[in-house]
């Protein structure tokens, strides 16, 4: 007990260490204002890519859905109409939904896809107040035609894709007017705030 009570040297040493650390470089990344560069193949929010002519890559084959270990993907395929093709092949995805709350971001869908249509992007800011908002349908997964065709993982130079800012628009966390009906595709609907009072 004497040793513990009179160990003044240890206390002084401890004080020295804390004082030194006061001036040390802090590893904190101040997240909302400073964003970390993720690895190019970071597994984040999915994206459905297009071909250079604007057609969708997805052919509605459902391979991603069968590969998914979390049963997060639901694809409903449909025939392409010969005069208004959605994708170059015979079929396209009439409905394509990923439940990001089920998804474990393993990337197996990306591996399975024969046309490299579904890819995981480094976008990770998906938080929302509504459960339904995590079911991403084609209106949010598909790259808008005016934004480009989407980048495959190997072509992302520094992790964050150039259009990372798009997430904020895609997500619309607070603005209920711009929210989404979870299972609706096509035009955007007002969210029904199911399960919440009022």
């Amino acid at each position: 007990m004497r040793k513990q009570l009179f160990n003044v040297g240890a206390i002084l040493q401890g004080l020295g260490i804390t004082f030194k650390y006061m001036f040390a470089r802090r590893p904190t990344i101040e997240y909302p204002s400073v964003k970390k560069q993720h690895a190019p193949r970071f597994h984040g929010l999915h994206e459905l890519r297009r071909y250079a002519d604007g057609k969708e890559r997805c052919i509605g084959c459902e391979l991603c859905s069968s590969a998914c270990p979390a049963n997060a993907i639901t694809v409903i395929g449909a025939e392409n109409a010969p005069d208004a093709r959605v994708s170059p092949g015979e079929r396209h995805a009439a409905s394509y939904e990923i439940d990001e709350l089920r998804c474990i971001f393993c990337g197996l869908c990306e591996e399975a896809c024969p046309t490299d249509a579904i890819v995981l992007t480094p976008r990770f800011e998906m938080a929302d107040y509504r459960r339904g908002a995590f079911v991403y349908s084609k209106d949010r997964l598909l790259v808008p035609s005016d934004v480009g065709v989407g980048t495959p993982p190997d072509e992302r130079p520094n992790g964050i894709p150039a259009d990372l800012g798009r997430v904020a628009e895609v997500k619309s966390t607070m603005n209920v007017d711009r929210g989404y009906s979870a299972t609706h595709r096509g035009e955007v609907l007002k969210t029904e705030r199911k399960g919440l009072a009022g």
Partner: protein
Amino acid sequence: MLIVLVKSAVLLLVVITTFAYAMLFERKIMGWMQLRPGPNRVGPWGLLQPAADAAKLILKEDLTPKTADPLIYRLAPFISLLTAFAVYAIVPFGANGDGSPWAIGDVNAGILFLMAISSIGVYGISLGGWASGSKFPLLGAVRGTAQMISYELSMSLSFVGVLMLAGTTSLTGIVNAQERVWFFIPQALGFIIYVITAVAETNRTPFDLVEAETELVGGFHTEYSGLRFGSFFIAEYVNMLTVSCIASLLFLGGWNAPFGLTMLPGIVWFVLKVGAFMFFYMWLRATLPRFRYDRLMTFGWKVLLPIATLNLVATAAWVALH
């Protein structure tokens, strides 16, 4: 009368502002020492954090446990708060040219008043813990009482050494007696004892057995919420400021300038000394783990008290021989 009121109001404002920023800087300094940036989101450099905290505490629900004794439960935070502020009635912060102190009241038994008031402060803790009617606060309160008694003894003894050297109990008189040499040199032992007991008196790490988050949740204030919790919180920091002020007054020469550097006014030196002390307490908190309870008691009774007594006897002999 009016002047005293105005003085008190100004002083209250100063003390509360100091509390708010002491808290902010404590969080900053602890953050830096732990390789974190500390609060920096509210306002530039986090400077508006205290205001945000105050708003949060005011808006919190005020809960009273069913088993609590309502009257005492509500009274306890105010005992803590009032005694914490009452000390500032006699603390001098500087002196005019003619030697009259900058204080609300210049009591000639200043140090006795101080000891009396700081002993009442523990009632806030013990009553609050006891009246909460649950286990952890009770344990915290019991610890608080025992700790206060054991450490206040050594603390008072360390005061007495200073009193004997200065030959007065007036705080202004003690500061004036330190014009040539500050008392932390002849009273080195007393100074060390005071610094240790002051940490225990204010219930701060490594002597924060009274709160002991890891074992007692929040100790005596476990059940308190909102502004009542805030009162305890303010009291803790104001007490910290008080013990820093006393340390500078009794041992570090108060507003006397060191090395004859009199171009800065005395109040600046005083503030610097108090600030250094506050920093030291924050530094300790970021460094040391909590004492075990039996060791705290052993340390208080078997180490501090004998040393303090020895110091007292030696000082008395020295004063008698001169």
